[in-house]
């Protein structure tokens, strides 16, 4: 075999599985004028969030009305407000046909866990006056236990076991080994961080971006004192 043939055979791609945390825009009505107005209001609250944001457009919960859905217009409204539609989530034959016409991928409705994403408000509207003190836990958080710090930071001054779960709308601090799951900024706060003295976590997540134990174990900082934060939608782990 000559050089050229060998080159031809050398792989130029690799297939990889991955789990992405994506925002889903779930439409409950096909009144597109109202969508246009309401999206504009949301964008005003959190412009960065909508800037070139990839989304899944879900039509499976959309109430059917007399007039058929104008998919092309729907897509352009989304685009106008900064949203890139990656795929449709739909099952209705009419929607499937429309998707095929504009060459858009379709995923079936899933039973997966989803929760409403409240977008963090911008500085002006932030509730600076309603200060919520951090939630402080001094006892170990054990397997099967879940602690949630609503609208604030969570501080744990003991070990967090494998099988335990920490949730916070704000930051999470763990002054002990973190062996369970920690989800900071669960209401969409992209600025939230996770600080811990020994990162041996089962999962770390910030505003829906996450890494699971399999990835974390390969991290050179496994077992070290770390902080975890979002850098352009990418979860970064660095030493403290």
């Amino acid at each position, binding site marked *: 075999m000559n050089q050229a043939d060998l080159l031809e055979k050398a792989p130029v791609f690799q297939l990889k599985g991955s789990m992405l945390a994506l925002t889903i825009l779930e439409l409950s009505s096909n009144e597109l004028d109202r969508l246009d107005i309401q999206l504009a209001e949301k964008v005003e609250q959190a412009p960065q969030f909508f800037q070139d944001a990839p989304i899944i457009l879900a039509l499976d919960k959309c109430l059917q009305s007399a007039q058929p859905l104008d998919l092309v217009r729907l897509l352009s409204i989304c685009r106008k407000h900064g949203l890139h539609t990656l795929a449709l989530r739909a099952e209705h034959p009419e929607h499937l046909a429309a998707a095929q016409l504009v060459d858009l991928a379709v995923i079936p409705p899933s039973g997966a866990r989803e929760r409403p994403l409240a977008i963090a408000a911008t500085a002006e509207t932030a509730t600076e006056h309603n200060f919520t003190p951090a939630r402080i836990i001094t006892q*170990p958080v054990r*397997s099967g*236990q879940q602690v949630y710090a609503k609208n604030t930071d969570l501080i744990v001054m003991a070990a967090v076991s494998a*099988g335990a779960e920490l949730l916070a709308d704000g930051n999470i601090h763990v002054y002990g080994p973190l062996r369970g799951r920690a989800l900071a900024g669960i209401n969409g706060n992209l600025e939230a961080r996770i600080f811990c003295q020994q990162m041996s976590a089962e999962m770390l997540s910030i505003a829906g971006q996450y890494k699971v134990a399999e990835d974390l174990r390969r991290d050179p900082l496994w077992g070290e004192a770390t902080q975890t934060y979002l850098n352009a939608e990418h979860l970064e782990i660095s030493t403290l």
Partner: protein
Amino acid sequence: MSKIIVVTSGKGGVGKTTTSAAIGTGLALRGHKTVIVDFDVGLRNLDLIMGCERRVVYDFVNVINGDATLNQALIKDKRLENLYILAASQTRDKDALTVEGVEKIITELAEQFEYVICDSPAGIEKGAHLAMYLADAAIVVTNPEVSSVRDSDRMLGLLSSKSKRAEEGREPITEHLLLTRYSPERVARGEMLSVEDVEEILSIQMIGVIPESQAVLKASNQGVPVILDEESDAGQAYSDAVDRLLGKEVPHRFLEVQKKGFLQRMFGGKE
């Protein structure tokens, strides 16, 4: 002041009943009036390990249902003056126990006894919950393996949130960890978690480390709690654990791999 102590684990078959019998007997040996209560309805075997199975007339469920008085159901130990057993029912199922029934009887026992030892069934369901609900202290029994340690962790979480003390916002249950079936040889070969590993994972103080020992099986076949076999390593380790429970500081033994002495090498040592 009476003290209610639950012996619990989450995972089954780790040595709860063996421990309840040994600790209860050890407390009685030191002069404390003690009762051991079998909460394992349907699978009773505390009476077998205590060697009183032929003297069970009434059981825990009979007392709850009012078929017998507490004093009719209490079985006096034949070896020790101040030791009693309350057997579990063999024929009923776990639903025979109710929160109100258990509370009434355990409170009554606490008036008569210095120590009430509750031998919990396995699991984290109703039976285990009832056994720990009224406790002042807990002995969490663990084997040096990952699944057992994980279950103990789960149980420690429940102790801190699902007990009567937690519900009433009183001081939490005092937690003790007892590591049993410990084999220094297997730890050295990396087949088992070490004492340090387990302490690190559970971040709780160790009240005893009981070695894996033939003496346990022998004792339970004879219906004699292993703590009464003073020659045995397991018996001595349980004895140390009772001292620690009573607040004494005693160094841990049987943690190192035993080097066989000359005579043992020549003639084969006893286990």
